[in-house]
């Protein structure tokens, strides 16, 4: 399954194959840093607003595709709030990988990550940051990196098939 996380409300980009799209549908609450998703309702965020199950969805996907406005090299607040509330994709316990601390796996699936970032004036430094961020995410999800793609506007994503 491909999991798409996007901040585009009227998302209409075609996706090949089995997929799920997480997009803004009603207000989203931000992560409150309680770790309830690890130690209260393991695997699921405790805030019940319709956006609490991304950790589980990530456990079922083979590809995670982010489609977001780029802000300072980061993804947008909506997409980031989704990611923040999905840390239960991993187990709370730590492991050391490549000399650095990360989390143990909860699920067995290996996710390939890519991001499609749009914005009028994405600078070279922001592009570098965005790639580093995706690589760091892949390291933490114990997954793989496909690539980061940049667009001037949402309209420029018109020819893309995910």
């Amino acid at each position, binding site marked *: 399954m491909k999991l798409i996380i996007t901040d585009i409300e009227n998302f209409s980009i075609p996706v090949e194959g089995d997929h799920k799209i997480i997009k803004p549908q009603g207000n989203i609450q931000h992560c409150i840093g309680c770790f309830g998703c690890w130690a209260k309702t393991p*695997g699921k965020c405790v805030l019940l607003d319709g956006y609490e199950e991304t950790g589980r969805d990530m456990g079922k996907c083979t590809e995670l595709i982010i489609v977001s406005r780029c802000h*300072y090299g980061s993804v947008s607040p909506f997409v980031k709030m989704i990611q923040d509330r999905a840390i239960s994709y991993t187990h709370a316990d730590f492991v050391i990988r490549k000399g650095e*601390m990360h989390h143990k796996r909860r699920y067995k699936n290996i996710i390939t990550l890519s991001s499609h970032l749009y914005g009028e004036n994405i600078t070279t430094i922001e592009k570098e940051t965005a790639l580093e961020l995706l690589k*760091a995410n892949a390291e933490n999800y114990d997954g793989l990196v496909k690539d980061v793609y940049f667009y001037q506007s949402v309209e420029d994503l018109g020819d893309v098939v995910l």
Partner: protein
Amino acid sequence: MRIALINGSPKVKNSSSSILLEDLKGYLGKNVEIVNVELHSPVITKEDIEELMKTDAWVFSCPLYVDGIPGHLLSCLIQLEESCVKNSKKHIYGIVNCGFYEGIQAKIALKILQNWCLKTGYIWSGGIGVGGGGGLAMISNMKPGQGPKAAIDRAIEKLALSILKNDITENQYVSIAFPRFLYKMAAQLGWRQMIKANGGKAKDLGKKLD
């Protein structure tokens, strides 16, 4: 000199971000005026923005979330970008603490703050990546500069000196001075205590949802 200390943790109480700002406050001394701003939600009030605009330097202190800036704080940064005064000479500093042991893991979050400065025209003036931040609340009673926090406090003291001199410094990366394997063990014990306190079982930490 007026310095804004901005707490960007979503936690209203007992955040490591606030502990680090308290330590910094101590090193900044009594000859500066401190303005505390609490950014725990995605919306920053008009009053807070007005207060912030009246200061000479800002210090963001926040946790590392999924290798970057927490979503709610990103939202505040965008709002601040929209209201900032261009070509202001404001100096911006950042302290990003992370749960993993290595402070260097906060490098990308500091870069995002630096990129934000390029958009706002403010002057990025350096930051600290603090590893083992999850352990700070446990040792918050210790005097600054002592025990496992000593190395972190040295970095904070250095940052305070730069702020007071309006200097620009390189980012510093530090970790809690506590062996990594013990930090890992303590955290894992902590998760087990927490799930039991919540009425669950330790083995549920690894629960897989269908």
